[in-house]
């Protein structure tokens, strides 16, 4: 054995490696979160351009063509834009959503004369430039050409460009135009899917757990079910997607891309988690309580439903929430059953074609537009906050309802 100084040195070294490993794991987590949050934060604001709108008395506001009126007012602001291409460059600084906003404004407007500056949605290229995501090089920035830049500079000089809260991101469904794309449709799809997953897997999982824990003796049959459930918990999620594809789509012929199918598939995936968590919760209920109930003349089923289950409920719910949280973030099985599509409508029910939040993230990160990068991060932020809240609820439930026997 080497001398004590060397041994102590190696002891210190060993401890340092351990600390380094823990630190590295935490550091990687922080880098990931920092990167996501710093990229995505800017997506909650959006660039708007001010336009001087002048509409004289005598015009019926709700009958005006929003598109041409807005363009006319724009040309009044920039009389120097005469050529066709100049006009086109000027118009292209605005998003198609600007016309929709103007139309809505006209419909909601009370008076009969409009005179003043109003702000309208800018295009994603301008948005990227104004937020500084795309740097200016000479007279161009990313996809903004010098011929457009002169108008942008005009707007900046007149102080008619500003950031406003991004009402599209959380208020609309997907769109080809990044500045108008939102995650509301995906959130609805996720909620429908999760609701269905919960409704199918929770009762099945709890009933299975009760049966395995309380109503059957240890025999070959119960062993088979037990090993089976333990192995199902480790089956890759994509295999569940293939199961959903083969069973729900090809055999039962349920509609493709519907959140119903997604929910059922996620439900099958969550089932083993719920069974395992419920079993350990049921196991931790002290037998003395059950024996007291039996001793007073209750039947086995009465004991289970009146004592065991209520006492095990916090543990069961905690396990279920964790399982559901995992299902919310799951993407691969949903790709298999066709929930990966460009869908501009907000789904009205679980039978409508829809995406889910993680699938929306997957779709957006694949889009070539620069502006989708920050929107992808913003969607991730929403997803992470949602998961965080769910997990906090689970921890709270466990702390609050946990009983020490």
């Amino acid at each position, binding site marked *: 054995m080497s001398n004590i100084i060397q041994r102590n040195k190696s002891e210190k070294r060993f401890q340092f490696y351990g600390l380094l490993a*823990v630190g590295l794991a935490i550091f990687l987590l922080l880098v990931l979160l920092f990167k996501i949050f710093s990229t995505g934060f800017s997506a909650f604001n959006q660039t708007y351009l001010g336009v001087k709108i002048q509409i004289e008395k005598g015009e019926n506001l709700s009958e005006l063509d929003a598109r041409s009126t807005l363009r006319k007012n724009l040309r009044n602001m920039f009389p120097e834009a005469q050529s066709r291409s100049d006009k086109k460059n000027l118009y292209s600084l605005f998003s198609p959503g600007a016309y929709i906003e103007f139309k809505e404004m006209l419909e909601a407007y009370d008076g009969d004369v409009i005179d003043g500056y109003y702000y309208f949605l800018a295009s994603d290229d301008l948005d990227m430039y104004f937020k500084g995501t795309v740097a200016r090089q000479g007279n161009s920035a990313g996809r903004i050409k010098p011929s457009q830049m002169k108008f942008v500079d005009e707007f900046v000089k007149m102080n008619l460009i500003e950031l406003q809260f991004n009402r599209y991101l959380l208020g609309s469904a997907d769109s080809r135009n990044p500045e108008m794309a939102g995650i509301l449709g995906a959130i609805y799809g996720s909620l429908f899917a999760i609701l269905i997953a919960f409704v199918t897997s929770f009762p099945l999982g709890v009933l*299975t757990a009760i049966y395995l824990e309380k109503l059957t003796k240890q025999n070959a049959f119960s062993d088979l079910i037990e090993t089976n459930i333990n192995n199902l918990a480790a089956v890759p999620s994509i*295999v569940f997607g*293939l199961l959903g594809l083969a069973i729900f789509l090809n055999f039962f012929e349920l509609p493709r891309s519907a959140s119903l199918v997604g929910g059922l598939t996620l439900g099958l995936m969550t089932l083993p988690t719920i069974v395992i968590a419920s079993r350990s919760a049921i196991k931790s209920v002290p037998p003395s309580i059950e024996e007291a109930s039996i001793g007073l003349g209750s039947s086995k089923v009465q004991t289970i439903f009146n004592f065991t289950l209520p006492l095990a409920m916090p543990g069961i719910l905690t396990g279920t929430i964790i399982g559901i949280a*995992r299902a919310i973030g799951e993407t691969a099985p949903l790709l298999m059953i066709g929930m990966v599509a460009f869908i501009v409508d907000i789904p009205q029910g679980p039978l409508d074609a829809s995406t889910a939040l993680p699938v929306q993230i997957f779709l957006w990160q694949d889009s070539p537009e620069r502006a989708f990068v920050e929107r992808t991060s913003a969607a991730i932020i929403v*997803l992470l906050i949602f998961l965080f809240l769910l997990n906090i609820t689970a921890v709270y439930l466990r702390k609050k309802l946990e009983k020490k026997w």
Partner: protein
Amino acid sequence: MTIEFLILTILGLTAYSFFLSKRKASALNAINPLDVHSQPHYHGLFSAILTIAPAIILLFLWSWLENSIFKTNLESYFSDVVDPYKVSFYVSGVKSFVAGASDTLMNHSNFSSAVEYYETSTKMSLALKSIVIVIITLITFRYSLNLVTAKFKARDLVEDIVIRTMKYASIFAIFITLGIVLSLLFETLRFFESVAVTEFLFGTHWSPQMSIREGQVGSSGSFGAVPVFTGTLLISLIAMLVAGPIGLFSAIYLSQYASNRVRSYAKPIIEILAGIPTVVYGFFAVITVGPFFRDLGIFFNIDGFSSESALIAGSVLGIMIIPFIASLTDDSLSAVPRSLKEGSLAMGATLSETTTRVIIPASFHGIVGSFLLAFSRAIGETMIVVMAAGFAANLTANPFNAVTTVTVQIVGLLTGDQEFDSAKTMSAFALAFVLFFLTLILNIISLSIVKKFREQYE
């Protein structure tokens, strides 16, 4: 009468039968409680079950039968169309037209007559269904009310039904496994009708040719899956090289060195890594890790450094599985009896010597088990590799090159437009079959190792 109204009627009758039977049983109870076998609410429950069960079963059977009959009949309207995909397109067109979801009359001579047939027959079927089901429900409703007598053992029956339900629920888990195996096996066997097993398992060229048109040159594709398997292995190994040391040393530090306070903070923080959705890791790989490694590659002048290299996908995958290794290893290190540890320390060994020479050997099974579990996770992980690794199958062991994995191929082959009978689609099922069995075997081995180890000290 709509389907919603029918369901509401059934539910209403069920609630009413619960209420009536309960009231009748309560009246019996009031006369002589000792004579009555079951509590009133058991009588109510049994009546409710008796009322609702036949109606629900009938409703499901009827809808299922009706669907298949309508489908065959509708298809016969379009029997002149050769392409089965086109036929199902027309059929769904008819359905959505009748449902009011679309108002396009499709371009087919029989379309309007098909619409007419579907419209009248669904109406007829619904009317007939409603009448039959309501009559049957009324009969069971009446019958269940007659059953409420003092001697009637409603509680026994209800409990029997409950226990049976639980038993079937637990059997359902077996059906899931069976469903997975059968659905994979069925397509896999069909795949092996067109591609030889040996070619699939030992062939070294994988290009499931995306034929755009039928009969295109080279549309048959080649299905030698070895490059796919080696790619999976390479990425998973890189992931294990990242996660193994970090996970193992974290577990050692947390279980042996850290104070309770540090442990109570650090452990949940590391476990957050396991709760982050994998699509987020994939995005992280694309926007951060990818560019970082690419810059490193340029800095060190590495030839052929691909932006979809195995290194990027592997290292991000590694970050994801750190918590699996850390927490499972931590569990097995903590399960080593204190007496062993204290015995070694009392002999004058330092804590690091105790850890490496006593605790790790004593919990070796558990550590191996946790590594195997993490490895099986890495093999089955999909989103990270789909986003960070490539689709082209290269047979290489160079971590700087792009490789593909089993899961990437499955996603690539099954998303987007697909004809369901092509070898291309079925090869995805064959790959999934291999994936399923590989993870299953890894899982069984690791679970049995962990279990064996646990029994040693208990």
